[in-house]
């Protein structure tokens, strides 16, 4: 990557709004994510986090303002090309139940018509990367545990080595122990891979663990956008409310 591209934010949300039936689901949102950075979008359900992700991969188009990916407006991108360069992980993986683990992971390479050998090798590499044994390749999603499915979901998103990763409550369906495990692994993975990551969650602990920055959203608006170290000490009332909600019962 040359110097100019390195300075170029991977994702720029430039005062974007999204209205549906007269209601603003996202209002005048401004955020940027640079390569190698993990931004956590924190907020309760209905705060516009998922809508924001969909504005980035052009599942939705902004009603006002614009969203730029790699310096280009999403409206100018061919949506198919745009999406193949953005890994997307949802809760429980969103895996295809009729595909084996191998075919699920190979989804983007297959539709991008990679040679079979290269796809095979890449699937093996990815299984290792997300901590799954190679003999799981021929299994179906229903035959896996929740944690394994989620790892397959991450592997599928990484398959064609996209520069950007979007994760929507990705680890939300997991039991606490598996969840802690996979969070740690994801953090380590991100330190190696240096993607531009937006991670949506309503869990403050997860946000503090995974984020470089935390953007708190409420009713479609950005409340604060702070480096993770400054977040917990912010005086913003809504941030205080979050911190208190998550420290409830703990001795402090």
């Amino acid at each position, binding site marked *: 990557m040359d110097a100019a591209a390195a300075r170029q934010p991977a994702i720029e949300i430039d005062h974007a709004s999204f209205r549906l039936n007269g209601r603003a689901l996202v209002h005048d949102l401004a955020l940027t994510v640079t390569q190698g950075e993990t931004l956590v979008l924190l907020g309760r359900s209905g705060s516009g986090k998922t809508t924001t992700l969909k504005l980035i991969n052009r599942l939705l188009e902004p009603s006002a303002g614009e969203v730029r990916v790699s310096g280009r407006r999403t409206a100018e991108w061919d949506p198919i090309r745009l999406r193949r360069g953005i890994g997307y992980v*949802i809760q429980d993986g969103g895996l295809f139940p009729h595909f084996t683990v191998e075919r699920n992971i190979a989804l983007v390479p297959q539709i991008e018509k990679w040679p079979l050998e290269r796809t095979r090798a890449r699937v093996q590499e990815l299984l290792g990367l997300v901590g799954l044994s190679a003999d799981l390749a021929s299994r179906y999603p*229903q*035959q896996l545990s929740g944690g394994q499915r989620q790892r397959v979901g991450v592997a*599928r998103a990484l398959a064609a080595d996209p520069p950007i990763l979007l994760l929507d409550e990705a680890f939300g369906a997991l039991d606490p122990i598996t969840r802690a495990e996979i969070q740690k692994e994801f953090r380590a993975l991100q330190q190696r891979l240096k993607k531009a990551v937006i991670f949506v969650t309503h869990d403050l602990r997860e946000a503090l663990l995974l984020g470089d920055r935390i953007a708190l959203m409420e009713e479609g608006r950005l409340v604060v956008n702070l480096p993770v170290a400054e977040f917990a000490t912010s005086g913003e009332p809504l941030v205080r409310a979050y911190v208190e909600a998550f420290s409830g019962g703990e001795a402090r």
Partner: protein
Amino acid sequence: MSFWDFLIAHRQEVLSLTVEHMTLVGVSIFFAVLIGIPLGILITRVPRLSKAVLGSANVIQTIPSLALFGFLLFAPWIGARGARMAILALTLYALLPLIRNTYAGIRNVDPAVVEAGRAMGMTDRQLLWQVELPLASGVIMAGIRVATVVSIGLATIAAAIGAGGLGEFIFRGLSMVNTQLILAGAVPAAVLALLADVGLGALERRLGALKGRA
């Protein structure tokens, strides 16, 4: 003479009428699949057509079968040949289960799965062929099974307009007040329907297992 003796004595005719019956049903289901599945897919893509399409197919189902066969007697270019008329009528009747099940099957695919596919950059065509149709195939197959079983029963009435099939025995038996003749048409038709139900049901379960492999 017992019923079995009767069947054995007339085995040639029983066999040829059974084959005729299966041809009527087979050709009708073939056309119904060819029209019904694409129509079912179309209304998942253009939802504002769904009411009109499903409504029309529903209305056709409510026409009494004997009346539908009767109407077609007056249709100019098909009226000449009984078999063609019967095939048209049976195709029309088979449309509803096919359109409805294709539509319902695709609509019932987990939206999270479809959205994941779309977000990963699959085109509409890829989503349809690689995700939606395979996952809906069990439900679509159920539509084909229902349509086939119903058609086998309905096709007996086609004999009333000279289309042949096992209904020949039934109508002949009715006019001659001969129970054995009626049974010689009704029993093989019932056996055909049962076989179709079991055979297509097995296929349906195999396709349904695609999404539920455990």
